[in-house]
């Protein structure tokens, strides 16, 4: 961590990697649906984030990635479940207490432009967070963070969000989050609206930032190669549940869940002439997405799964461990 940032440096244990900074247990997020019924956005997911780790969250549009990310932040709080940040429970707290307990976790929301006050200037947007806490922020601190995320302070200082490009906006959001000196950073689709050259810059920036500020990160995205590039482990979600947790270096060749295989088979990258992807065809018969208003019984993927049998309709498959750190929730996957 660079010494000039006035907020105190994060307490980083010497031994990294085993310490669990975030422990999520049986997280459930439900919304009331128009016309009655319930949207089952997240249906009981448990995972942990280790110190210094990047956990990728990958999955279908509407599968509950953002809802899960926001529920970690208690924005809004989950319907049920537990979120421990450094062993401190966040669920059940509100207002100032929540803000204090959650201080070490920050989130960059999907669609960053709409989360920025359009009337404020860059210099004020960067300092907004600490000022809410009543902390003073010096111009030097703002300059330093803008530089750290690759923005030229002089040229963006007085600009407003709409005067920034998508990539610049994303950099600004990273700077805003860093200003609060987080230990855990949740990034919701931070590069999906950017073109590939800017995407590469932002991914490199996040990687550097993570090292420099010793962050643990949750990275939500739907692009497999992007998630693989930034993550240590990847959690694959389908319709509110976890189907597989896979070490990133195993993703391309050792995926076990039929849904993960379907994702791999569908990547457009496979169309590039030099793609070295050998994906077995899963042969999905049904491309229809079930509704989160009425998710299938048992395994939620069963309506699209070529391996499905009777048990899949009656029993939700538990997460089973294959090799160390590789978990899969499928009755028929060979672990």
């Amino acid at each position: 961590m660079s010494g000039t940032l006035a907020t105190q440096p994060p307490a980083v244990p010497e031994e990294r990697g085993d310490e669990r900074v975030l422990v999520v247990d049986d997280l459930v997020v439900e919304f009331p649906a128009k016309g009655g019924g319930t949207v089952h956005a997240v249906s009981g997911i448990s995972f942990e984030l280790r110190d210094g780790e990047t956990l990728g969250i990958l999955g279908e549009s509407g599968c509950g990635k953002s809802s899960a990310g926001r529920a970690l932040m208690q924005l809004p709080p989950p319907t049920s479940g537990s979120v421990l940040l450094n062993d401190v429970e966040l669920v059940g707290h509100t207002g100032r207490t929540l803000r204090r307990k959650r201080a070490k976790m920050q989130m960059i929301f999907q669609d960053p432009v709409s989360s920025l006050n359009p009337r404020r200037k860059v210099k004020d947007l960067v300092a907004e967070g600490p000022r809410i806490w009543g902390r003073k922020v010096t111009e030097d601190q703002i300059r330093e963070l803008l530089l750290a995320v690759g923005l030229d302070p002089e040229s963006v200082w007085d600009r407003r969000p709409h005067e920034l490009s998508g990539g610049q906006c994303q950099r600004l959001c990273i700077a805003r989050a860093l200003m609060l000196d987080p230990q855990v950073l949740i990034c919701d689709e931070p590069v999906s609206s950017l073109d590939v050259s800017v995407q590469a810059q932002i991914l490199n920036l996040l990687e550097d930032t993570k090292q420099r500020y010793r962050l643990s990160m949750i990275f939500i995205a739907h692009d497999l190669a992007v998630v693989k590039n930034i993550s240590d482990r990847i959690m694959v979600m389908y319709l509110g549940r976890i189907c597989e947790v896979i070490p990133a270096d195993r993703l391309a060749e050792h995926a076990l869940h039929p849904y993960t295989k379907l994702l791999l088979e569908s990547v457009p990258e496979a169309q590039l002439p030099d793609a070295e992807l050998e994906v077995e065809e899963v042969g999905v018969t049904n491309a229809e997405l079930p509704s989160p208003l009425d998710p299938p019984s048992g395994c939620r993927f069963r309506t699209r799964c070529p391996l499905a049998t009777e048990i899949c309709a009656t029993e939700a498959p538990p997460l089973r461990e294959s090799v160390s750190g590789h978990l899969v929730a499928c009755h028929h996957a060979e672990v």
Partner: protein
Amino acid sequence: MTSNATRESTRPAERPRSGTLLAVEDLRTVIHTARGDLKAVDGVSFTLDRGETIGIVGESGSGKSVLGRTIMGLHTTGPTTTISGRVMFDGRDVQSLGPKDLRSLWGSQIGMVFQDPMTALNPVKKIGVHLTETLRKHQGLGRTPARERAVELLDLVGIPDPRRRIDQFPHEMSGGMRQRVVIAMALANEPALLIADEPTTALDVTVQRQILDLLGNLQAEMGMAIILISHNLGVVAGRADRVAVMYAGRVAETADAKTLFADPRHPYSEALLRAIPRLHEPPHVRLAAIDGAPPNMVQPPVGCRFAPRCAYAQEDCRTVLPELEPAATGHLFACHHPVNRGEN
């Protein structure tokens, strides 16, 4: 798709299936801004046959969307914009059409999927209204048939529970859902040309594949031509017959999709290909970002627009603007010092 095949009433069945549909000739779109004249599209030419797909790739701000909108006639010469060159759509000069003809063109001949689905959706109107309005106006459907057709269209683009979703407002849907609604709207009147501006950016890969397959099927069935604008090179590689790489309002390189991705000659195309993370590479490899900032489009660099960021640039690149020149049949690039020289 089956629902389409069985509907005869309003189909433009007698449409020709081959021949040139669109000819863009030295098109320039200059936007007059407070900071000066912005050359968003700066001399683009190409033709598109019926049933053909051209992919347009290039970095943010390179003019892809403005090009799409100018082709549609959404930009016209006026106080804020100056257009030169020509867009010939099905034998008609789009720039010469009045507002009434343009609206009927958009309703029935050209469909556009706009980049930001929220701007295309009115937040206070239910999803169903968005679809039925255009169906009733351009196909003359009554209230009930229009609603039935709207449900069909939502089903067609893979929206679960269409009968329930049709009465929802845009903000009640996830980003991916909204994108599919916008695609359904663009397809509602089975246009001859679909301009799809980042149509699958917000979608995960299985839905992306489903939507692109859907577009491909509709294309085969009705001979629809597609301009596919995407920053995802993989999407374009798999779906387009031809690809144009844009940089700073100009076409840097164009070729059939296979050639362009296997044998890029323009340094910008090469850099773009290198910047994508690849599934066969290990986690945490450093990506090859393109150094430098995007060009100023008010005062673009003299000479080659890419020269300030180009690893191969030499003196002539900074003074002489390279024109598109043929490498092989149908493969054109605008570069003084192309890459892969001799491998061809």
